[in-house]
């Protein structure tokens, strides 16, 4: 922060002399580099995991390397436990590294040695159990996110740019059921403080992505659009009531996208003027969307 600016706003009488001296005093305090160290920790964990994964994928052929990977994962967890007892921030990152190594370890065993004779779901199931155990033992949010992703994978749900719109009825239903289950889990007293947001975040995203996929892939589209609208109203009201802005904005965005897709895709257009209609629809609906968000935000702040 610029000292000259502080001096100038003091001279203008915006802040008192006492506050001015306090701020100048504050500027002389030691600089806290906690955030920078956290970024470096995260970077080192991600880089290590990425490079190790690549080495295993490209070059590893011996069982010794799998043993080394498993041992490394154990070392991460044990050192993580040690640092956790000392209340050191590094513990969370070591546990995350250990969790990522567990995934690589089981993936490697399945890929190289066909551990469960082609039953890939069993690999993801065991990994998921271990990750859930690690997340709860160490109260680690990042590990919980990995565990939930593995749970979804075990149920056959994968979300990527390539396959988000190519999924069948069973997967969509699994997605919806899983999202409801995750939402219920978020209310368990056991982890309300630590994991509630992570569960809710996965739940809301998965629920609306499943419904959007249903609108795009399944028939009748009107039914799924109606389902999207009704559930959006319920979820929106709930999060609006508890003043969770992130979630109600997310719901609004998903609903707008889903309903717009339905309107543009299902109404039969003919001739050149249909393109005018679509463009005008988007211009006016987006203006309405902006108006809606601003007003809801105002109401939410009251």
């Amino acid at each position: 922060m610029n000292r000259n600016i502080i001096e100038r706003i003091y001279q203008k009488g915006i802040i008192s002399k006492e506050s001015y001296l306090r701020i100048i005093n504050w500027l002389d305090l030691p600089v806290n580099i906690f955030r920078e160290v956290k970024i470096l920790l995260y970077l080192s964990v991600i880089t290590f995991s990425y490079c190790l994964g690549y080495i295993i994928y490209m070059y590893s052929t011996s069982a010794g390397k799998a043993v080394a990977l498993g041992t490394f994962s154990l070392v991460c967890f044990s050192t993580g436990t040690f640092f956790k007892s000392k209340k050191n921030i590094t513990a969370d990152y070591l546990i995350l590294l250990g969790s990522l190594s567990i995934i690589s370890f089981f993936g490697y065993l399945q890929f190289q040695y066909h551990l469960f004779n082609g039953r890939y779901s069993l690999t993801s199931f065991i990994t998921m159990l271990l990750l859930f155990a690690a997340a709860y033992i160490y109260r680690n949010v990042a590990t919980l996110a990995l565990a939930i992703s593995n749970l979804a994978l075990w149920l056959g749900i994968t979300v990527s740019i390539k396959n988000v719109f190519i999924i069948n009825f069973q997967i969509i239903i699994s997605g919806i059921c899983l999202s409801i289950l995750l939402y219920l889990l978020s209310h368990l007293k056991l982890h309300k403080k630590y994991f509630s947001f992570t569960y809710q975040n996965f739940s809301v995203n998965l629920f609306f992505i499943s419904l959007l996929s249903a609108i795009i892939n399944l028939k009748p589209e009107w039914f799924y659009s109606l389902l999207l609208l009704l559930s959006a109203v319920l979820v929106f009201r709930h999060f609006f009531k508890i003043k969770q802005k992130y979630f109600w904005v997310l719901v609004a965005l998903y609903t707008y996208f889903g309903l717009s897709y339905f309107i543009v895709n299902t109404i039969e257009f003919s001739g050149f003027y249909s393109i005018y209609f679509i463009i005008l629809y988007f211009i006016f609906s987006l203006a309405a969307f902006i108006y809606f968000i601003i007003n809801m935000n105002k109401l939410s702040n009251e």
Partner: protein
Amino acid sequence: MNNLFFEKVAIKSLLIDLYDVGILPKQENDNFKIKFYSPSIYIQIALFIATVAGLAFVAGFMFLLFNFSNVEFILAAIISALIFFWSLKAHHYNSGIDNASLYMSIAFFNIFFAANFSISIALISLLVAVTCATAAFLLKDRFLAIAAFLSLLYYLVNLNLLNANLVLLAVSLVLFIFSALAGRNCSVSNDKIFSTLKYVSSFFAAISPSIVFEGKYFLYAPAGFLPVLFIFFAVKLKSLLLLRTGILALLFNIASIIFLFSGLKFYGLFCLVSVLILLLCIVVIKILNVPKSGFVCVEIDEVNNAETVTPFLPENSAAGEFKYGGGSFGGGGASGSF
């Protein structure tokens, strides 16, 4: 354009930041009143996306009306500018609508020139640099300042006067010195622009030598160590700016080496490097548990620990909570209410 509005909002943001860290009394923060609408980040993102999409469809509608005659770009620019000025009139400040409409109007304006006049890409980048710089300083936008710098860099590199990487280094250094000098006595609203420019220019200065030796590992590796020097001097000079840009440049170099080179030895090397960084962080956390050489490394929630902060604490913490220097500043304080 209301310069006074931007200045007042910048002062208010500063006061909110100071209040949030607990060194400004509530009363002094409340005494300085300015009406502006700056919602929370999620609302900002939603409004930004909706405005950009809406203005893109407006441009599409113009295309249909004027049958691709290029006049649609200038019309779309005018409409975007009108929305921007309307949002300013409604006291919007970083609401998502004002940013999006400003960026879109500048983009449409430059596309209009590029589409209508047969000028080279270099000249277009100069035009972008001029328009972005003008808008950045008139309308106090940090993102546009970065865009102006990058466009200017592109223009200078395209002139082929010197080695492109030397141009990168020279421009970065000149801009850094300019920002440092100009930032000394600037207004509150310009301060954030100059500090952003300082960050961007020092980052480019740190990475430029490694870009010179792109693809030649044995030359690249020593040049890639410049960020380490930045970090060293950051510690020496107690500069958070050098520390941050050093870390960012280090990340850039690691990512670019992974991208440029492949093979077991490189990936093995990075595994080793990441373990070393991890160990270094553990040591830093251990050593800087208490303030040392002007630095400290403690979790924000733990800063009330009296033993740690007593020697440096202001006499009374205004909001009952206290945070260490550095790190917290840079973002505009959002006033939730409007």
